């Protein structure tokens, strides 16, 4: 039994053909599998190791390098607040503080209802529209604590 959907597995198989080595597509594969599964469980690691022709150790070595990849479950909505310099200059610290209060969790915390998780992240490429945050893959820019509340409420109601 493969842990990911057949569609995704098929997508991997096809995409892997574009590369000269079996392991090349590993990093995207991990990210897409994580998107579907929530995190890279032991089962997922085993599956991907088999797919990429690697030992599970080697797959874990790679997972642990990339900051977006995780072996621990996150919330349904993963709130990533950039506090790097450009955002910091425009109030990111207060924004992050506000998110902590609002969600009642800290850096890398998950709410008890598993709806939200929070992470202080490095620059996400929104420096000219700072401060900025990503919820899952969606960008939210020029944020203020008030705007952030709206954003969070909107996700909560989804």
């Amino acid at each position, binding site marked *: 039994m493969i842990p990911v959907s057949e569609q995704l597995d098929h997508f991997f198989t096809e995409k892997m053909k574009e590369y000269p080595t079996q*392991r090349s*597509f590993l*990093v995207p594969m991990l990210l897409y599998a994580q998107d579907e599964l929530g995190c890279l469980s032991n089962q997922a690691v085993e599956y991907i190791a088999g797919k990429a022709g690697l030992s599970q150790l080697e797959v874990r070595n790679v997972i642990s*390098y990339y*900051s977006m990849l995780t072996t621990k479950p996150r919330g349904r909505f993963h709130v990533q607040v950039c506090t*790097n310099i450009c955002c910091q200059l425009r109030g990111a610290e207060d924004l992050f503080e506000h998110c902590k209060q609002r969600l009642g969790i800290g850096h890398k915390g998950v709410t008890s209802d598993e709806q939200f998780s929070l992470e202080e992240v490095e*620059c996400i490429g*929104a*420096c000219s*529209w700072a401060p900025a945050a990503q919820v899952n893959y969606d960008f939210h820019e020029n944020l203020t604590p008030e705007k952030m509340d709206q954003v969070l409420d909107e996700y909560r109601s989804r």
Partner: protein
Amino acid sequence: MADLVSHPDEVKVVSQRFGKGAAAMDRYLELDGYKAVQKALASGPEWIINEMKASNLRGRGGAGFPTGMKWSFVPKESAKPKYVLCNGDESEPGTCKDRLILEHDPHAVIEGVMIAALAVGAKTGFIYIRGEYRYLVDIMRKAIAEAYARGFLGKNIFGSGVDLDVRWHTGAGAYEVGEESALMESLEGKRGIPRIRPPFPAVVGLWGGPTVINNVETLASVPHVILGGGEWYAKLGTPKNGGTRLFCLSGHVQKPGVYELPLGYNLRKMIDDVGGGIWKGHKLKAVVPGGSSVPILKADEIDLAMDFDTLMKAGTFLGSGGVIVLDDHTCIVKFCLRTTKFYQHESCGWCIPCREGTDWMKKTLVRFHAGGGIKRDIDNLNYLAENMLGRTFCPLGDAAAMPVIGMIKKFREEFEAHLEGRPCPFEEHGAAVEQLPVLA
């Protein structure tokens, strides 16, 4: 998604299609799309490289290496396949321009990759986009699929007999993977640890084959060079600094945003006119002119032409085009801490000076900014940074060291103002740092 801005001084070359729906193939074709690559096909590799050399286009990824020259290093004959790799890992704090290109003009990137491939005799190109930019990955996937559907990619492109593939790839969160050799490792499915150089990628790159690596903006500029001619492009800028580039204005300016300005544009003007001056009626304190890794400039040092050579003479770098503006309410120590924290977080950990140095500097700065600093710390921070500089395995170590050295040199008195338990003079309610580490 991100807001577009504009200013009369702008010279729109690489941004000319922004906001015009050019991500769609038909629209792109209406706006002169895929003409450059056909011209390149017709004119041959030598001509392409000559035009590129004439354009004085220098890499927009940070190092500013002349693109035409880089391409000319690729050996003509190679037993292993050659590749073109487009660097869309954009992660340098202060830099958010590749994102706009990928969003508004993905086909220009594809076209740039194709022209580079034709120039060096590669059959395959990869466009690597950082993992956080998923919506851009989706845009790029669609654009590539369309190009295949039209026969612009794949076998016998434009009926020329040439086969050419362009593929997309994505990262998963790592600044270091923007470094060209770490980028290749990542694309090969590995941890983003840089490679020993020499050999350089142009000779031994992806899977051992010669590889050209260029930034998104560099490659997106290529079709314009090809269509407008190298000489035309060169004249847009200053000598040896051809063309225009996307400057990302951020920080305490009234109108932050990404503006396309000719190389050599005056920095003070960029802040005062283009950026609308400092916000909230505050005064300018300092500018970091090329992304977080370049040495800082004080307010009175910014009458500078924004090109690679002038900035280098001024003791800093043009870098990735991120212009970060600091007003006089900013605490340099805190800014220095956040900058260092970034490098500490992003160091790949391979080499000792960077791995240990960034960690040590961060720990010291955390304590220092929280009021636990002693006088010796300032010299020690400088000592650590000086001993990283030029000794690490890849330039990330330098990137971490330079800002610290620069800030201590130019704002030492501000560091001293934090000493002996005094609270940060810029904080209203004392330091916002959560916990004071225990002294060893």
